[in-house]
């Protein structure tokens, strides 16, 4: 009894420390976003600003076309996510359930792409985009990310745990393969699909390097690039309070999605890992 109590105490202490380490920068961000220009660098630093500057958030909207960035980011992230789920489900089903020559080899090859760093493919992909004439358009932000090895892998592992009899039953019921995927596999794979969707959404939403390269016009920029408005071009004093306020605005949708879906999100990763 006592032992388990001590054990629990230690576990929770470790968890709390780690949790604090994760959450402190975020809290510091919130704090900074509410400070005035001069308060940001005051020494010793203070957690609670003397007078919370709520108008920082309004200023941010005025200083940069954030509305436009929001629309851009949303369009790109939503289509990318939907694409990743769709291609992921179809490919994962093929790798998990269909039999064809070289299936496992192709899957291995697919997985191997996970080991190629993004930086390596950056230039070739740019050249492809450029030849297609897609530079500075949504297409260049979306199309290269419509399929990922990660989503295929995660979904395949999950599909493998779905009993084969279900498919045989559906065949007996007169169900086509595609119909089976949409009517049975997908509803049963909600946890895995929500993880894939969340990862896809996060990846697209937070993407910085790629949009920086393929987007030239102000209109087409996404939120992470938009944040650069508050980083001083001369390398001198950035307007940190605005930058932090803007960053919080950028993070907000992700935070909300995670809070709403965290249960399914964790379940999806845990479940697809067990039988992997």
């Amino acid at each position: 009894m006592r032992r388990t109590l001590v054990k629990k105490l230690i576990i929770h202490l470790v968890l709390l420390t780690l949790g604090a380490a994760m959450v402190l920068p975020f809290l510091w961000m919130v704090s900074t976003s509410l400070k005035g220009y001069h308060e940001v660098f005051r020494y010793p630093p203070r957690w609670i600003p003397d007078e919370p500057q709520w108008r920082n958030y309004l200023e941010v909207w005025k200083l940069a076309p954030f509305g436009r960035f929001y629309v851009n980011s949303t369009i790109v992230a939503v289509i990318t996510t939907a694409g990743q789920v769709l291609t992921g489900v179809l490919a994962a089903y093929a790798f998990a359930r269909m039999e064809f020559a070289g299936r496992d080899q192709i899957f291995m090859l697919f997985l191997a792409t996970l080991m190629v760093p993004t930086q390596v493919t950056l230039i070739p992909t740019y050249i492809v985009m450029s030849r297609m004439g897609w530079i500075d358009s949504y297409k260049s932000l979306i199309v290269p990310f419509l399929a990922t090895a990660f989503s295929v892998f995660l979904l395949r592992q999950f599909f493998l745990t779905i009993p084969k009899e279900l498919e045989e039953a559906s065949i007996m019921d007169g169900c086509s393969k595609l119909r089976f995927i949409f009517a049975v596999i997908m509803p049963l794979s909600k946890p895995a699909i929500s993880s894939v969707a969340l990862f896809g959404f996060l990846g697209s939403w937070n993407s910085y390097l790629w949009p920086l390269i393929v987007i030239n016009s102000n209109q087409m920029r996404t939120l992470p690039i938009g944040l650069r408005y508050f980083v001083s071009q001369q390398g001198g004093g950035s307007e940190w309070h605005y930058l932090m306020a803007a960053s919080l605005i950028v993070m907000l949708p992700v935070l909300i999605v995670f809070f709403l879906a965290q249960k399914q999100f964790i379940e999806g990763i845990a479940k697809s890992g067990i039988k992997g």
Partner: protein
Amino acid sequence: MANVRLKNITKRFGSVTAVNNVCLDIPHGKVTALLGPSGCGKTTILLMLAGIYKPTEGEIYFDDLQVNGIPPQLRNVGLVFQSYALYPHMTAFENIAFPLKLKKLPKAEIQKRVEEIAEVVQIGDLLDRKPGQMSGGQQQRVALCRALVKKPDLLLLDEPLSNLDARLRLETRAEIKRIQQELGITTILVTHDQVEAVTMADQVAVLKAGVLQQYGTPKELLEQPANLFVASFLGDPPMNLLQGELEYQEGRCYFRSGRSLRLPVPPLAAKGLQKSPGQKLILGIRPEHLTITWERGRAPWRGKVFLVEFLGRDKLLDFRFGDQSLRVLVPATFPVERGEVLGIEPQVEHLHIFDPQTGLALTGPPEGLRACSDHEPA
């Protein structure tokens, strides 16, 4: 309704032969059981009938139609899986309605037919539940409904009782039989449990290692097993099998086993045998076909009770002759003590004699349902 005919069906998975040259004529409107130990190919046959597997060789006929190339959804066959394979995210109603929905039937028609079949199977009150909220027996009924709602010509049941507990098994057994009779549907069930096969089926096909051993009514299989495998696989408690040889003395025939067991073989049973002394044989008799007699003089066999097993309604007496044992079934009220010496009288008409080499029965071929005519027994 359909007569189902399997003609020289063979199924290989790579180098493994799961089903080997099986021929069966399955009459319509009856229940047929495919019985055998696990890995005997019975489920493979079922899935070939469903169309999920394709036979490597041979033909399957529904009436006069060769169905080898017909895909499962066009065969009009209902299949209930061992695991039930209900769609976990759908309610019972949605599960049952699924095949009709795929046929694009109008909503009202679907509603009507689901309710109809739910009434027959008596699950009307479960239609709103999801599989996770139902017991195994209830899930099985839903699965049965899903298979029946299409009004199939043929109903296939894969181990229908194996996932149920003992009490529920008894109930479901009767229930399936009732539904089958109510609908008059040709039914084929796969089972490894001989009691299940014998109680539910009108005829039973016994399989071992992909080869058909015998096909007949439960009565025929119990009374005239074609070989040692069928004799030992069916019946509870199992048949006594004694190894020994024939001996002739003063014109009478004896069965000798080891040093301590010497049984006179009744003339009736000895009739079909070659009269060659020293011929090795296996003698089989079921425990219920042995009678205890008090008149020792009259009893052809005598033995000492080694063990008394109480079975509830009956007692099973175990006699030992050397290293061979002979079990006799007596009523539970029968007064007997361990160590008593009793006379045993075999019911002559129930003696079976087998060739130990081939395992085949030597006491006349069983008469009954035959596998299809051009089938050559291996």
